[in-house]
Every structure is written in structure tokens, then in C-alpha cells.
């Protein structure tokens, strides 16, 4: 088979853009990330059928939010390295769009999983925690590489779980930078999580995940 027979030409620039988007999402294993997010939502839904004490009810969504954040952050790893970076203007937009879309999908999936059940903190808590954790994951990817993007969200999860524990066994950790330990309507915690998310998005859009060839 020759190359000419291998596929149909794109009809126009819009179709070319869609094709680029599809290829980019495939190369970043976004379908696998969406499957992981869906799995987290299903686990949350099933878990909410059980009765939990207050501590467990706060921990459980946080663990699954971290799972979603890790799934999003690892999609920033590029398999192509420097030749991809030495191209035109589309790459930063593709990175930004991918991270934003996956974050929205994760917030939506976890919020839907909590409908009709007692989800501690509600949708607002999910939005704040997930955005902040994703920001941490994106920053970790930008500085350590996509393959290590799980490390910082996981470390933050340990700190946040300890902060939740201190609410029952003081002295309580109450800094807004540990936003999962603050109430859902806490403005300072929301600002901190939002700042981390925006910084992470900017870092990953502008410079991408660090890869071996960048070292």
C-alpha cells in the first residue's frame, strides 16, 4: 500500500485543527485518563452507599480527587520530546485545552457521583480540592517531568489527610494552603487552590512537562 492510499486528505483548516486535536489527545493517552477519572467516580459512588464516620467521609473524596488529579497531570508527558517543542503556536493551546477539559470532566464526574448521596463538602469542595491538586500535579510535571507528576499530589494528599486528622486530634493545621482541611466556603482556601491551579496551567501551557531531552 502506498501512502496516498493510506488516508483521505483533510477538507479544510477546521478539519485540520480537529485532526491535530485528536492526534494530540491520543499521544497524551487522554482516553486512558478519562477512563481513570470515570473509574474514580464509580468508586466514589459505590463508596457513598456505605455509612462513614466524619473523618472517613472527608478522606474518601479527597483520595479520589487526588486520583483524578494524578490522571490529569500524567497526560502532560510528551512522548516526542524536543522536536515537538520546536514547532508552531498550537502546542501551548493544546496543552492548556487538554488540562482544562480533563479538570472540568473530573469535577463533573465526581460531582455527578455525589448526587443523591451524602458527599462531604459537596460539589464546591470537589471543585476546590480537585483544582488545587491538579495545579500541584501540573507544576510537578513542569518541573520534574510527566512521569513523576503523581509525586507532588500524592505527597500533598498525605499532608491534607494529616491536617484533617488534626481537626479531631489538635493542634489543628488551619492554613488555607492546606485547603482540603478548610470548610467548602472558605474564601482563603479557595483563593490558594485557585492560584495553584492557574499557576500550574500557565506552567504546563507555556513550557510543557519537563522530559528527559530537556535536562
Amino acid at each position, binding site marked *: 500500500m502506498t501512502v496516498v492510499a493510506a488516508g483521505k486528505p483533510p477538507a479544510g483548516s477546521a478539519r485540520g485543527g480537529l485532526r491535530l486535536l485528536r492526534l494530540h489527545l*491520543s499521544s497524551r493517552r487522554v482516553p486512558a485518563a478519562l477512563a481513570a477519572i470515570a473509574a474514580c467516580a464509580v468508586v466514589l459512588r459505590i463508596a457513598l452507599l456505605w455509612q462513614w464516620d466524619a473523618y472517613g467521609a472527608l478522606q474518601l473524596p479527597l483520595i479520589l480527587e487526588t486520583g483524578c488529579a494524578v490522571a490529569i497531570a500524567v497526560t502532560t508527558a510528551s512522548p516526542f520530546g524536543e522536536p515537538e517543542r520546536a514547532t508552531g503556536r498550537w502546542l501551548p493551546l493544546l496543552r492548556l485545552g487538554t488540562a482544562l477539559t480533563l479538570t472540568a470532566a473530573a469535577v463533573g464526574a465526581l460531582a455527578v457521583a455525589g448526587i443523591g448521596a451524602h458527599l462531604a463538602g459537596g460539589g464546591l469542595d470537589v471543585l476546590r480540592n480537585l483544582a488545587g491538586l491538579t495545579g500541584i500535579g501540573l507544576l510537578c510535571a513542569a518541573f520534574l517531568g510527566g512521569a513523576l507528576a503523581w509525586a507532588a499530589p500524592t505527597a500533598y494528599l498525605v499532608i491534607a489527610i494529616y491536617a484533617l486528622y488534626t481537626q479531631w486530634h489538635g493542634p489543628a493545621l488551619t492554613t488555607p494552603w492546606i485547603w482540603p482541611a478548610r470548610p467548602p466556603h472558605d474564601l482563603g482556601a479557595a483563593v490558594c487552590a485557585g492560584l495553584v491551579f492557574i499557576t500550574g496551567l500557565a506552567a504546563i501551557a507555556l513550557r510543557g512537562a519537563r522530559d528527559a531531552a530537556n535536562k
Partner: protein
Amino acid sequence: MNVATTDLTRRFGRNVAVAGVTLDAGPGVFGLLGPNGAGKTSLLRMLATVIPPSSGRIRLLGRDPGVYGQRRQIRRRLGYVPQNLGFYPGFTVVEFVEYFALLKELPAAEVHRAVAVAVERVGLGDKATAKLRTLSGGMLRRVGIAQAIVNEPELLLLDEPTAGLDPAQRVAFRALLRDLGQQATVIVSTHLVEDVGAACTQVALMDQGKIVFHGTPDELVARGAGTTAAGDAPLERGYSAVLAEAGS
């Protein structure tokens, strides 16, 4: 000149990888020779606009890569194959090359033809729909070259492009280099002096971050004539003689 560098320097911490390189290159195939750690890859990465210089000046295709808008224009007309090119194993050959064509902002109507031409030029027409995970190392190397030439670049940078190619593929690749060099500036970093002799019109030899020789392959051969420099071929003796002089 498509490439003009003046006193170009790149440091990584305390290590000076490229030390004050001044170089001009127009259309043709330009060979960059040198031992491991000479600074060839760092120089190519700066020319590929993926790392900035620590100091010095670069003009590529008449533009300044330090300025965002001009860097974007350079990148649309640039092809780059690094030493270790990454692949997404789930892509087919066509998808991989097409992805780079679209990233390099080729008009959508031209992408299909450009991809077909690039894949045929590297001799992978019969593997166009094969997944990358099924290809050999030499074929993957050729796929990497296809992505670099898909936009018919005016500046093509190749870092050890013949590594992993068998002798027949290397002969075909040299012919491709000569063909590309008719229009574009092709800079090839290599350890293999026979590639330089067969394909390059100009050659530079780097050692410890500096250009220690710049001339034609024949001039490099002349540097080794009548010496006891190591090497089985005249070019190798020239290479060894220049390095010995630089080290003394």
C-alpha cells in the same frame, strides 16, 4: 546565510558545552564532526530553538530566534531530528508525520500530500499504515527523518541521523541528504566520517565546545596527508590530525 552564529556560548551549570562558536552556513549539507562531549548536540539544540544560548548571537533564516514572533516563523521552516527521538507507539507512520505537519502549521489542504511525499522519500511508503510499535529501530529513525522533512524545511538539523541504519539505508539516506541540500541548509552531526565524505559540502570539527576546523571534506583530508595520524581512511586521518593539533 541561513545560519549565522557569533560567539555563541552555552553553559550547563559550570560546564561550558559550547564555547564561543562563530559559524556561517548557507544551502548545502554541512557536517558537524567531533568526539563525544564536543558540544555538537548542544549547538544543534540551540539552532533548533529548543534551548537558548547563554551568550552570543544567532540568526536563523535571517531571523532572531530570541524574539517570539520570529522564532515562530523559523520553526515553521525548520526540521529537527534529535539523537533520541520519542515516539507514541500507538501512532501509525502517517499519523506521526501528519501530527508534526499540523503542528508546523502546514495548510490543511497540503498536509496529506506533504505527508505522503515525506514518507515515500524515506522509503516507508509500504509501511504507511503500520503502527510505530511494530517497526524496527532503523525504520523508526527514518520515520523521525520524515517528520523533519514534511514541511520541506529551509533549515534541517539532524543529530546522528544514520545511527541504527543498515549500510543500504545509509547509502539511500546520504542520497536524500544531497537532494535536500540542493535547496536547504542541512546540518548533520555525526561520528561517522564516511557520511561526511559522501554527503557534505562543508564540514566543521568541534572539540571541547569550539570549532577547531571549518572547510571542505577535501581540506580535512589534506590536513591528514603525510602525517602519522590514526585512521583507516583519509578523512579519518584528517579528523585525527586536527584533533591532535587542537589538543596540543
